[in-house]
């Protein structure tokens, strides 16, 4: 029986932006993450994926809606407690700014170990060595500062930091987007190995659909603050239903003919991406969709389960 580790219920996150304007970064999201899965959260910039990450972690207090993590309910006025932070961790996109350049690796990793009392003080150094070994970094890294190590290694330190508290759940916010492809593979393999070994649950946020194809169990596609499509991975790639999903998939650069055949027919992007301050009425994708009908300009479609476990939010599928 699969249990939900995280549930987002009608989650809303709006940011004020000047006079009477609001950035609707996350707009009424319902999403659950099953224990043990890797949920891929995909979308382009401005879609709201990082905002979801930060809101889940408690870095923002949501405007409305509930976040339920491991049975605990958090509303817009609740703060996360220490227990939450021990069980839920986050790895950020840019290791250059997520690691304190004035602290060496030993100091960086000591903090979560001390705060969550993972081991007695005199065993901290040993624990750090153990964790460095887990992420396949040499032990002499303990005394290095972030400035002295490369991007891939910095990200490994960020991952090491995340596993210090022995969490159940990690939000990976574009963990490899700032890295070269040869290092990316190493980091991702490391993350997947850790997941198996420590029974972790991930939300893997990225704009890279080729990576998601290889790591996630389910895919959720976001556009301007809303989820367009949610589906088991293989099914999503075999048959993407939402026009935006098709557009994304047809735009990915691939390196082989077999992959070329898997892509949907090219869907050229027409029209401009609306500003998140000025989202159009009706379906937010109507400015770029080639299937747009009059209904799309007036009514925002509802999420509908079109096949078991496969949800789409689009008028093409909402009529019987």
């Amino acid at each position, binding site marked *: 029986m699969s249990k939900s580790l995280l549930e987002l219920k009608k989650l809303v996150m709006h940011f004020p932006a000047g006079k009477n304007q609001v950035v609707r970064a996350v707009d009424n999201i319902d999403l659950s993450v099953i224990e043990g899965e890797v949920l891929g959260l995909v979308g382009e910039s401005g879609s709201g994926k990082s905002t979801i990450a930060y809101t889940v972690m408690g870095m923002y207090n949501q405007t409305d809606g509930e976040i339920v993590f491991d049975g605990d309910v958090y509303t817009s006025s609740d703060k996360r407690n220490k227990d939450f932070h021990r069980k839920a961790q986050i790895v950020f996109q840019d290791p250059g700014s997520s690691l304190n350049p004035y602290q060496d690796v030993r100091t960086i990793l000591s903090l979560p170990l001390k705060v969550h009392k993972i081991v007695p003080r005199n065993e901290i150094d040993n624990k750090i060595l153990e964790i460095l070994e887990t992420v396949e970094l040499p032990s002499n890294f303990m005394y290095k500062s972030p400035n002295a190590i490369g991007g891939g290694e910095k990200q490994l330190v960020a991952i090491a930091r995340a596993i210090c508290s022995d969490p159940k759940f990690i939000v990976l916010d574009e963990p490899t987007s700032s890295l070269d492809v040869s290092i990316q*593979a190493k980091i991702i*393999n490391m993350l997947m190995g850790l997941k198996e070994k420590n029974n972790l649950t991930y939300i893997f946020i990225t704009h890279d659909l080729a990576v998601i*194809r290889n790591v996630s169990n389910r895919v959720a596609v976001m556009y301007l603050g809303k989820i367009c499509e949610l589906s088991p991975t293989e099914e999503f790639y075999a048959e993407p239903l939402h026009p935006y999903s098709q*557009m994304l998939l047809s735009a990915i*650069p*691939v*390196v*082989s003919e077999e992959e070329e055949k898997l892509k949907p027919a090219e869907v050229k992007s027409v029209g401009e991406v609306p*500003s998140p301050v000025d989202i159009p009425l009706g379906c937010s994708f109507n400015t770029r969709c080639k299937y747009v009908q009059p209904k799309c300009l007036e009514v925002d479609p509802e999420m509908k389960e079109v096949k078991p476990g496969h949800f789409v939010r689009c008028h093409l599928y909402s009529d019987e």
Partner: protein
Amino acid sequence: MSKEKLLDIQDLRVWFKTYRGYSKVLDGVNFHVNQKEKVGLVGESGCGKTTTMKAALRLLEGTSASIREGSKVQFSGQDVLSMDNDELLDYRRNHVSMISQSPMSALNPVFTIGEQMMDVVKYSDRVKSGNTKEMEEVIVEAVNSVMIPDPARIMKSYPHQLSGGMRQRICIATALVKPCELLIADEPGTALDVTVEAQINDILRKLVDEGDSSLVMITHSLGVVRDLVDKIYVMYAGEIVEIAPTKELFHNPRHPYTEGLLASVPRLTGGGLSAGIYGYVPDYFDPPSGCRFANRCKYCTDDCLKEKPPMVEVSPGHFVTCIRWQ
């Protein structure tokens, strides 16, 4: 009809002077583009791709970089490195254009788009009459060709009022309002979303196919160049390690680095990811005397460490810098 070499770079060596000594980044780069040709320059961060192109435009002057003795850069047969000021200005205004990686820093935030584009037209030979109206028409046509609606409104806007994709398209349009035989696009899609990047690449492809110019596409993404260019140069740690026609490179990569790079790209077909390429790029302050890829190469032998491997033609148009290519 033999294609004339438009840009010919030979034995380019560029060193950067720092407090730690010289960072010997480029160590004998040979790169050329023919007329009406689309060439990809592919490599990961820090390998020297942008530096190579900047050297060709003499944009490194005044920085800590120095082009070493023996380097040659020729454009349409003319020696670029010894051009005087007037010739250099003419070269940059009327023959080559470069679109940089980051559209935000390429555009001046305190001037409107129209003012900036007008500047480019005015100082080029495009509208010899100097007639303002004619120049405006050229600008409008360029903005239309990059699929931006309502050029009049855009020309009155400031860069921060446009999205990233629009700014990058404006940079491309700016490259079009002046005569240009060679267009250098430096990772034009990096700062942009994949759908917008696809749009930009379509525009670039169309421009080159319909016009007379050549294209150099600098990128770290093999997938992007696969659909766009005729020939690919693969660069690693300041050296060109492989050159091949596009299809040939993907079907038959001969350099271990190219092989590793292709294998590291996550596939849409699934099947998990490869292990990546073990190891790290060499220290440019103390580069190895042999092959620069040796410490990461699974085929490495003792000979690889002794001397730089020569570039060998393994099949027509396909070159590899490796002694183990067989």
